[in-house]
């Protein structure tokens, strides 16, 4: 009785499979897959899809690379000229200016991990206003309240505790991870 074509084909296929694969090779590949699997949830793509979608316009456009730009993530409530454009940093005063002892505190979302961080908006004082270009003058309004709620307002010059109440520039210091 001639073998059915189907039988011939399947025999050839199984023989080929047996000839070209090894059981130990399979175990090794499984091991590698297991080894690699825990790393995948850490990739930004996985974390981004798990997080909540942005809530404010600022959050949608925020970036984490350039702290001399208004859309740097920590500046979501900053109103004024950035100290990072004036010889200081995002949380340090330029030489000759002193940080205000009081500040207002809000939160900003870091676009990399999508988590909310507590940020202290501290002005640098005691020197005339910094003369950086227009692109360094920002008005982030996340969590800012009207002036009649002055303790959470960003229009106020927070230099009134300093020896000189002259405003120089604005910083945004990271305090920690919001609950």
């Amino acid at each position, binding site marked *: 009785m001639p073998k059915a074509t189907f039988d011939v084909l399947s025999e050839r296929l199984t023989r080929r499979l047996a000839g070209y694969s*090894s059981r*130990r*090779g399979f*175990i*090794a*590949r499984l*091991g*590698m897959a*297991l*080894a*690699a699997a*825990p*790393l995948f949830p*850490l990739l930004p793509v996985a974390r981004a899809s798990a997080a909540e979608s942005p809530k404010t316009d600022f959050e949608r456009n925020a970036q984490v690379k350039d702290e001399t730009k208004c859309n740097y993530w920590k500046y979501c409530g900053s109103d004024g000229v950035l100290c990072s454009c004036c010889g200081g940093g995002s949380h340090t005063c330029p030489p000759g200016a002193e940080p205000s*002892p*009081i*500040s*207002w*505190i*809000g*939160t900003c979302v870091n676009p990399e991990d999508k988590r909310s961080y*507590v940020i*202290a*908006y501290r002005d640098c004082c005691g020197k005339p206003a910094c003369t950086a270009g227009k692109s360094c003058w920002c008005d982030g309004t996340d969590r800012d309240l009207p002036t009649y709620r002055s*303790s*959470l307002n960003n229009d106020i010059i927070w230099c*009134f*505790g300093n020896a000189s109440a002259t405003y120089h520039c604005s910083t945004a210091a990271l*305090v*920690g*991870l*919001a*609950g």
Partner: protein
Amino acid sequence: MVRARCVDVFTQRPWAALAAVAVSMVLAADLKSEPLEPFRPAQGDYLLNCGGCHGFHGVSNANLVPSLKDLVGYYLRSPEGRAYLPRLPNVAFSTLSDQRLAAVLNYVVFEIGGNSAPVGGKPYDAAEVGRWRKQPLNEVVLSQYRLQLVENLISRHQAPAELRVYTGSFN
């Protein structure tokens, strides 16, 4: 037979595959651990509503804003002092609910206040805070009211003279 070398290593030495799994799991666990712990709710509310002026840990320039660290608990040693904290204008007018405000006050008094709080002192609850915040101290001369309270705490309740420090003036 030409095969990927890395696979060959694992087929000849199965323990190497197991070791790779173990190492990667340790590595992944390490990467996953957060460098920062999130603030507890009361601590977060304190920072967002009080910490800008009173300091992240209750330490401030006491001439401008009263320092809280190891001091604020003394207010709980007199009934007027206990009522004073939730009656302070920015406490009473807070946007927080009575419940959350009570939690912030307890955090401030018992944690930031440290040993200044009376041993076994009763924590604030929402009902008590709700009652007091309806009677805010906005019709007294606050600096004088505070000073009277503080003098009483110093002379009768063993509060330190340090509690007096506060000029309430920004100039």
